[in-house]
Structures are given as C-alpha cells and as structure tokens.
C-alpha cells in the first residue's frame, strides 16, 4: 500500500506543480511542455485507479496527438515576449474576474455533490481483477449509451467538416501533381520525333 500511496502523491504533486507552471512559465513552448507533463501524470493517476484503458487513451489522444499539434503551432508562432508582458496588467482584472467566477461555480457544484445510494455500493466494490476494463467500458458504451456515443461522434464529425470547409480555399495558378494524369500519359502525347536536317534547325 505504501508504494501506491507514494506513487499517488508523486503523480498528484507533479500534476499540480506542472499545472501551475503551465500558467506561470514565461515561454509559451515551456507552458505546452508542462501541460504535456501534467497529462502524463494524470495518466499515471488513472493507472493507479485501475483504469488502464483510460490512461492509455489519455496518452494517445491528448499527449500523442492534440498536444503535438498544439506544440507545433506554438513553436511556429512568432511571439514577442516583451510585448506579451505589456498587456498583462490591462487584462488582469478581466482574467481574475473570470477565474473567480469559475472557482465559485466549481465550489458550488462540489458543495452540492452527493453520491446516489447506488453509487456508494459501487464505489465499495471496485472492478474485479479478472475483468478487463476495456471490455467493460465497451460493453457500457455500445449498449446503454449507444445513442449518446454516436451523437458525440456525429458532433465531432460535423466540427471536423466545418473546420475543413472554413479553411479550404481554391487558389488560382497552383499546379498540383496529378498522379492519375501522369500514369495515364502515353508516349505519343509526350514525345514527338522530328527529323532535323543539318544546318536548318527547327
């Protein structure tokens, strides 16, 4: 038990510390790197909970894909750090207000939170060791919550199509490689044999 407790406090401490560093680091790239560290340690916490499927999905989706693109964009931005600092005091009241409102809302939600009586019995009975939580999750997602699951998928699909439509533009004068055209090109379309008499040229 000591090992689990030690791991929990280690992961939890690093998660919170890197969360603080995300908002306080001067360099935005460092912020993203700390964000990745926070994701990673949250995955460690999931493993401690016995939710290894969620842990792996968190690493694959958030760390392996989302954060890469995030880092990609942040690294390419041409940010002037001095200019970034200048607006700090100006935006500070607005940011602080939003932060306080969110904090109050969170406290309100957590304060009114009560587990249902059925939930109490579940929390006392963790998943049996011989059950794979991948299979259990699949069993719940594809039976009980199938419509919600599909709806979530559709919403994501629509969002993706929307992003593509918004950013897609057809520019004039861009020559793209057309593989099919290249493959279908015949010899007589491309080459003309000409007999040139010496001294005359074409």
């Amino acid at each position, binding site marked *: 038990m000591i090992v689990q407790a030690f791991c929990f406090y280690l992961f939890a401490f690093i998660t919170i510390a890197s969360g603080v560093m995300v908002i306080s680091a001067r360099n935005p790239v460092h912020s993203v790197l700390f964000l990745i560290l926070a994701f990673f340690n949250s995955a460690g916490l999931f493993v401690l909970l016995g939710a290894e499927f969620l842990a792996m999905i968190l690493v*694959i989706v958030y760390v392996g894909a989302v954060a890469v693109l995030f880092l990609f964009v942040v690294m390419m931005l041409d940010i002037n750090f001095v200019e970034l600092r200048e607006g700090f005091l100006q935006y500070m009241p607005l940011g602080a207000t939003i932060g306080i409102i969110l904090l109050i809302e969170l406290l309100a939600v957590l304060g009114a939170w009560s587990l249902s009586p059925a939930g109490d019995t579940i929390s006392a009975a963790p998943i049996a060791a011989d059950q794979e*939580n991948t299979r259990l999750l699949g069993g719940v997602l594809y039976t009980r919550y199938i419509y919600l699951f599909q709806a979530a998928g559709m919403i994501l699909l629509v969002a993706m199509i929307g992003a593509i439509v918004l950013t897609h533009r057809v520019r004039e004068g861009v020559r793209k490689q057309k593989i099919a055209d290249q493959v279908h090109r015949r010899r007589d379309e491309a080459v003309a044999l000409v007999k040139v008499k010496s001294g005359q040229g074409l």
Partner: protein
Amino acid sequence: MAEFSWTLLWFDYLWPLIILLLLVLAIVVPLLVAVAMFTWFERKVMAAMHLRMGPNVVGPFGLLQAFADGLKLFVKETIVPSGANKVVFIIAPMITFTLALVAWAVIPFDEGVVLSNINVGVLYLFAVSSLGVYGIVMSGWASNSRYAFLGAMRSAAQMVSYEVSIGFILVTVLLIVGSLNLSDIVEAQRNVWFVIPLFPMAVIFFISALAETNRHPFDLPEAEAELVAGYQVEYSSMTFALLFLGENANIILMSAMTAVLFLGGWLPPIDIAPFNWIPGWIWFFGKILILLYFFVWVRATFPRYRYDQLMRLGWKVFLPLSLFGVALTAGVLVAFDLVPQAG
C-alpha cells in the same frame, strides 16, 4: 500502523525491487548491444548491396566497429549551442532514448516471458511510439537552428499522419483477436499468422513503421541533402549518441511490433515436429532480424520521397485503405460469425 521491521521491508519492498531491476537490466543490456550490432548489420548489408566491403577493421569482420564509435562519441566534448534552450536541449535526447527503452516492458519474447503482461499492451505500445515525436520536436526547437527546426516540423507532421493509419491497422488486429494483450494476440495466431489474412494491412503497417521511425525512404526530417542532418544537426558526443541509439532502438521495436502483430511472435510457422523443436525466442528474434533486413533493404533501394508525396501517401492512400480494412474485417467477422466472444 504496523511495527517497523527490517524483514518486512526487505521481503516486501526491497527484494521485489531488486528482482525487478535485474529483470529490467536483463532486457535493456541485450537491447543496447542489439542496437549497437544493428548499426554494424546495417552498414554491412548496405555495403554488400553497394558491392563495398563495409566496416572490416575493428575486430573480426568489423564486429566491434559500433563499440569503437560509441567510445569515440563518449570521450568527445558535449557542445551546447549558445543560442540553445539548454534544459530542453539536454532533456530531448534523454526522452528519445527512454521512450525507446520503456516500450520493451510489454513485448513478449516467448510464451510467458514478458516483463509486464498488461491487458492494454497494444495501446501501451501505440502510446509510447506516439510519444517518440516529442524527443524530435523538442531537440529541433531547442537547438535554435533553422535546419533543426525545419527537420522537427517535418517530423512532427509526418509521425502524426502515419500514426493514424497505424492505429486503424491495430484495430483490425484487435477485431480478430478480441483482446489488447500482446500474448493473447500471439496465441490467436497459432493456426495462421495474421500476415496471411491481413496481408495488405501488414504491408501498410510496415510502410507506416518506416515513416514512423523516420527511415528511408521517408527520412525527410534528417534529409542530409537539404537539412544537413535535420533535428540532430546541433548535437554532439553523448547527446547525439542518445538520439542515435533511441532511433535505432525504435527501429528494432517497430520490427518486434510487426513480428508480434502479424508474424506470430514466438510461434513457429507450422506447429509440427522439426519447427516446434526450436525454442520460441529464437523464432521471435529470427523474425525481428528478417524485418530489420527489410528496413535496411528498403534504405538501399528506394530514393527519398518528396514531402508533399509523403503527405499524400499518408492521408490520401493509407488512411482510406486502412479505414476500409477495418470496415471489411469487421464485416467479414460478423458475416461469418467469427467475432471473438468475451473470454
């Protein structure tokens, strides 16, 4: 709180820890030797394909060449560029190297011979291989050099693109096996290796593995002709050695992954007399060796892709094909009532 006792501390915590460390060393040390020998193997095979001699001075057949190179890198000076972001610059090679090693925890070498037989083995491998991009992106960015940065950007886009099709190919395998455990996946291939029913998927997986490990013909992140050496241009001495070792360990890892997913891991091709006399781990290493030969063979044969062609191949060819593969496999399994039942 129980009374503190030394015997408890020793038998419950320290002894298992020592055993675990020894097991880890038993995997990591041979792996590092294998990585060193892979560089020798690669140079020798390339030389044979080019009708050259290859390394032949240090040791018999040049076998010790890799260790000589390692020693040379070890005694050189580590140079950190003055414009570099020092912490990230130093951490990046460590991340590459560590990630290349931790993935081996779940690889089954033989029946029951695996450090950690976790239920989500495939996802773990996929997660670790998708993290590999960070070492490259961080090293490219921290170097504060245009060449390194361009290499890192190319690499990030490339690895993310090919991961998508690798993910779908993993799904086809999982559909047939009905488990995410790597040992279960190998056991499911006792009658027929998945390379036969899933041949197109295996080919796409191998090509995606080439792109994922930044190998020829997809080695644009370090294209010498355009980018000098891409993201590793500013690295020297041990920091370079770590990047290099990590990359090569990743190549061996991808070969092991292909062997486990498609070539039946430790299983012999047919379960009859002369074949099943040979122990499983020899089959497994033999398969890895053949796949490594493929990696080198491809490098000696194909010219480098252009970047837009690389992206086209990933998104417009492999992604639809692997998506179609998932639909087809699922359809066939349902139609012939072959869906694996919950065990």
